[in-house]
């Protein structure tokens, strides 16, 4: 329960950011570079003198948005593919499952690094990153697909579905009226479980230098400096934005595990 409230509060703070803390996250105050938390900069500044608290709020908006977009695409693709496979059965089913296995086995990230180069240069950086996040989502459709397939398989064996089939109800109606409602619970649980992962996918991209382009802030960009743990010795405040992110991820984790437990269907 507290987890759900926490999520709502966090999202509200992120959305209300510019009004709560009206500091420009992009403005460089070079004389105040690398300073710790103080009256003017609540979380301190980065190496260019940009306010870390403002970057945390703005970056959160962007990262959560990108993560949500990625989650929606991955789930939509996976669910449609998996449900169709599970319902149709036979060759279509085997084909979709085989393809999903291929997708899960290829080390995409290393190979994707070069995909950025194939995109036109005059794409504004945000669109370029959104494109990559969506691309990652498209690659990660495999696991939701398998889950959906398993779910739909067991649901289609239920009595009322067999009966509908026997009555000659067209397949799409069966899907819409009987199957999909049974899957909504797991769908929501999946969405909540995937969202933090996709927000973090942006972190991995940032590590490879492919995150949100400068100067735009993102949570990935704020986590990357921690890569060199020794920096904490002299600049301990770079840990603060990351600590503030923890409640977000922890809450999502709690809520999604609860939902998964409630709606669990044995595979």
């Amino acid at each position, binding site marked *: 329960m507290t987890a759900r409230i926490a999520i709502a509060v966090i999202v509200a703070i992120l959305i209300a950011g510019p009004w709560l803390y009206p500091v420009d996250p992009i403005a460089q105050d070079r004389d105040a570079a690398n300073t710790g938390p103080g009256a003017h900069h609540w979380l301190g500044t980065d190496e260019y003198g940009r306010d870390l608290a403002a970057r945390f709020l703005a970056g959160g908006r962007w990262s959560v948005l990108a993560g949500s977009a990625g989650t929606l695409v991955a789930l939509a693709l996976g669910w449609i593919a998996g449900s169709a496979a599970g319902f149709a059965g036979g060759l279509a089913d085997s084909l979709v499952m*085989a393809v999903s296995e291929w997708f899960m086995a290829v080390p995409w990230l290393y190979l994707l690094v070069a995909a950025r180069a194939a995109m036109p240069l005059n794409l504004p950086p945000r669109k370029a990153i959104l494109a990559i996040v969506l691309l990652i989502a498209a690659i990660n459709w495999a696991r939701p697909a398998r889950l959906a397939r398993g779910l739909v398989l067991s649901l289609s064996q239920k009595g009322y579905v067999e009966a509908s089939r026997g009555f000659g109800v067209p397949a799409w109606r069966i899907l819409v009226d009987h199957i999909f409602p049974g899957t909504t619970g797991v769908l929501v649980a999946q969405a909540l479980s995937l969202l933090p992962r996709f927000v973090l996918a942006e972190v991995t991209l940032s590590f490879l230098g492919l995150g949100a382009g400068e100067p735009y802030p993102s949570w990935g960009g704020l986590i990357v400096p921690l890569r060199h743990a020794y920096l904490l010795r002299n600049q301990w405040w770079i840990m603060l934005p990351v600590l503030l992110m923890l409640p977000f991820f922890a809450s999502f*984790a*709690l809520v999604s*595990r609860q939902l998964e437990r409630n709606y669990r269907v044995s595979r």
Partner: protein
Amino acid sequence: MIRRLGACVLQLAAISFIAFYLFSVAPGDFYSAERLSPQLEGRSVDQWRAAKGLDEPWPERYVLWCESALRGDFGTSLAYGVPVARLIAPRILKTALVLMPSLALGWALAFSLAAWAARRRDRILEPVMSVAGMSPEVILVSLLLWLAVWAGAPLAGAWLPIAGLTAIVVPLVFLHAFSALTTAREANFVRIARSRGVPRTRLWTRFILPAAANPLVSLLGPSLATAVGSSLVIEAMTGWPGLGPLFLEAVQARDYDVVQAVVVILAAALTFLNLAADLLLYRIDPRIRLRV
């Protein structure tokens, strides 16, 4: 069974094709960095490129690669100038030296923790492990590294990469084991057995654990996949001479044959492990036998 093997081979072929395509299509190639050197003429670089066959269109190169791979010849490394197989063999051994203990340790630790937490209906470990599982491995290893320095522990040797890899495997396995065990605990037949007075230990060993076996065995494959993926980065970070540094450097340098060989070998290992896991599942879970 034959059909399953056939599907595996097809999968390997598809993966090798996808990997080859993606890597060849990326702009730039092995000699791009040399073109930047003012001391080298562009002509010389072009000559090298032609001599190594990099000017050929990628479908032709893929066919050539397939032909030689089937003969056991995985090509030659552009950087090292030696056959890829000879280059990779000692590295695979070193990676296995880190991978096996980490997986064994990770599974043992995670499973014990999960069993303990499930019995006590613990509510704290799960979210902690969730968040730990989401942390980027680079940060975990960096923290581990500097902790070791602060503690005065030796930095060379296998223990650092093993510790890092274990730290990555444990949250993943814990979460699956925990949910499998708690689900099994709530199952109807367990509740009946409990109400009939079956003692706690027997309840766990004869009812709950076997019921949790299915999702756990299914986890073998994915956990190995995650471990292998993470081990590449961890080895590169800690200076352990396994596949990791070799592969990552080859990807950056566009050493096509090395990357292709590593991808295919890893995919093959994972595929066959999944197959083995499925067979194991088939044997131990009667529900699957009956359904099929």
